[in-house]
C-alpha cells in the first residue's frame, strides 16, 4: 500500500507538472510573439532615431538657423545668463557663473 502511494504520488506529480507546463506553452508563444513584435518596433525606433539624429545634428540646425532664423536667433553673452531659484513662492535670481 505504501509502495502504491509513493508511485501514485510520483506519477501524479509528473502528470500535473506536464499539464501545467503544457498550459504555459501558450504563454510561451505569446511571450515569443511579443518579443518578436518588440524587436520589430525596436528596429523601427532605431531607424527613426537615426533620422532624428541627422535632422537635429549641429550641421542641420546651423543650416536651418541660417535659412530661416538668421535674425530671430542670436548668440547671448554668457554674462547675461541668470539662474532662477524658486523657494516657497519667492523667486531668487542670481548670476550664472561657469
Amino acid at each position, binding site marked *: 500500500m505504501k509502495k502504491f502511494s509513493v508511485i501514485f504520488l510520483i506519477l501524479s506529480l509528473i502528470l500535473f507538472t506536464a499539464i501545467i*507546463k503544457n498550459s504555459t506553452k501558450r504563454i*510561451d508563444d505569446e511571450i515569443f510573439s511579443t518579443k518578436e513584435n518588440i524587436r520589430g518596433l525596436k528596429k523601427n525606433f532605431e531607424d527613426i532615431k537615426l533620422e532624428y539624429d541627422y535632422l537635429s*545634428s*549641429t550641421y542641420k540646425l546651423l543650416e536651418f538657423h541660417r535659412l530661416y532664423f538668421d535674425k530671430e536667433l542670436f548668440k*547671448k553673452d554668457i554674462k547675461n545668463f541668470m539662474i532662477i531659484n524658486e523657494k516657497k513662492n519667492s523667486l531668487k535670481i542670481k548670476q550664472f557663473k561657469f
Partner: protein
Amino acid sequence: MSNKDSRIVIENQENDFLYKKNKSNLNITFNRISFIFFIFLIIGLIYSIHLIHLGSRKSKIENSDNLNQISNKLYRADIVDRNQKYLVKTINSIDIGISPSKIIDEKKLLINLKLIFPDKNYFEVQKRINKGKFFYFKKNISEENYEKLMQLGDKSIEPRDNLIRIYPQKNLFSHIIGQIDSDNNGISGLEKSLDKKLKSIREPIKLTVDKDIQYLIRRELIKFNEIFRTKGSAAILMNVTDGEILSLVSLPDFNPNKRERISDINFINRATKGVYEFGSVFKTFTLAAAFDSKLIEPQTEFIDLPKSLSCAGFPIREYDNKIPSNLTAEQILIRSGNIGSVRIGQKVGEEKFKLFLNKLGILEKINFEIEEVGKPIEFNWGKCPLATASFGHGITTTLLQLAKAYSIIVNGGYHIQPRLIKIDKKNDREKILNGEVSKKILSILRKIVTSKEGTASLANVNGYEIGGKTGTANKIIDGIYSNKKINTFVSVFPTSNPKFVLAVMLDESQNNENYIYNYRDGSNFKLKGSPRNTAGWTTVEVVGQIVEKIGPILATKYGDIN
C-alpha cells in the same frame, strides 16, 4: 424391444481438473502490478520527454535569435556618443540576386527590371544571365523597390538579407572610430581595438565624446587650417576631473563610409599618434615640478638672468630680447622666458624633473583605448638636455599626453586616465601632486591670458576665465630642425574651478596677411594680418574662436547648473 433391462450406470467420474498448486516460481499477482507500473512508467516517460521538449523549446528560440543577430558574421554593435546619438550603426539591407537557371521568361524579366531600375546597364545584366551563374543584381535596395520586385513573383529573383555598417557622422569621428575592412574586421581606431567586443555584444557602446561639440571644434579647425594654410591640426577637449574626452579632432580626416585604404602619412592621427616637440608648453611642467618639490614660490625672484646661455657649444637664447633680467618665477612663465626656465629646471634637478614628468605620463607611451598612439622619442638626460627640456626643446610627446598632464596639474594633482569609452563606475582618484601646485599654476596660466605681458590675450573670451600656455616649436623633419612650426596652446577653463582642458595644435601654420584679429581686451582694436607665426597669433586665436562657439554648450550642459 429386448428384454434386456436397460440399465443406467452411473459411474463416478474422477475429476480430471484437479487443482494442483503451481510449482513454478511465477507470481501472477506480482506480474500484474509490474505491468501496471510499467504502463505508468511509459506514460511518465512520455510526459517527461514532452516536458524536456517544452523546457528546451525556449532556449532554442533564444539560440535561433542569437544566430540571426550575434553569430552573423557581419554583425557589429552600434557606437553612440555620450548623449546616445549614433556615431556608428549596423543596419539591415536587402540585396537582390538573380538565379539564371530559374528564369522562365528572360525577356519579360528584363522588361520588368528595367521599369523598376531604369538606370541599370542591362547589357551587362544580359551577359551575366547568359553565364548561367547566380549573381547580385542590386545591393542595398529600398523597401519600396523590394515590394515592387516581390510583386513580380519571379522565382529567379532572390532577395538576400545583409547587414551594412554606416557612419552617419561621416568624417566627424573618423580618427576615433576608425574603419573596418571588407571581411568585417576593424583595421583602425575603436573598430580595431574593440573588434571582439563589437562582434559579441548587442548593446551599443557609449563613448565620452559629444557630437555637437566635436562638430563645432572641427568646423573651427577646418576654417583656421585654410586661414593659416596648415598641413594639419588637432584638438582635444578633456574633462580635467575624470579624463573623459569630449572631443578629439585630427585633420585631415577621412570618410569611413568610403572604405578607402589610407596610406598617406598626412592622415595620421595628430592628436594621439603624432609625436612632436611642443616647445614652451613644457615650461609649465618645469615650474610645476619646482612648486611640487617646494623649491620656489611664484614670487621667488631670479636675478641677473642673461640673454643667452651656452650649452655643449649650442646657444640658448631668449625669444624676446626685451625680457627683463630680473624676473619672478611667475613672470618667467607669463613672459615665456627660456633662460629663467633653465634656471628653474636646474634648481629642480635632473632626477626630480624626470620623476615629475614620469608622474604626469609625458615620456612613456600612453595606454589608451585606440591603438594609434605615438611613443615619445627617448630622451637622453644630462646637464644640457635638462636645460633644453626645461623650456621644451628636444623633448617630445603627444598632444593627448600634453592634455592629460595639464589636467593633472590643474585638477588638484589627481591622476587621471584619458578615456573615450564611457564607464558608469568612477574609480577613486590617486593624488600624485601637491595640491598647492594647481592653485599656483592656475593663477599664472590665467595671467598669461589676461596680462599685457602674456602671450595668449586673444583667448580671453568673456565669461569663461580661460588660462593657458602657448608653445611655438620648430618642426623636426628628417632629424633636422626646420623653419616650419608646431604652434600649440593648452588652455584651461574656468580657472577659478577648472573643468576642461582644451589643447590645440597647428602643424606647419603660416602667416595670413588678410586675417583680421579682434582684440579681446575691451579696446575694440582690430589688427589686419598676423605679425608673427607663433602660437600667440595662430593657435590662441583658434582656441578663442572655439571657446566662443562651444562655451555656451559646455556651461549649460556640463556646468554646475545641472
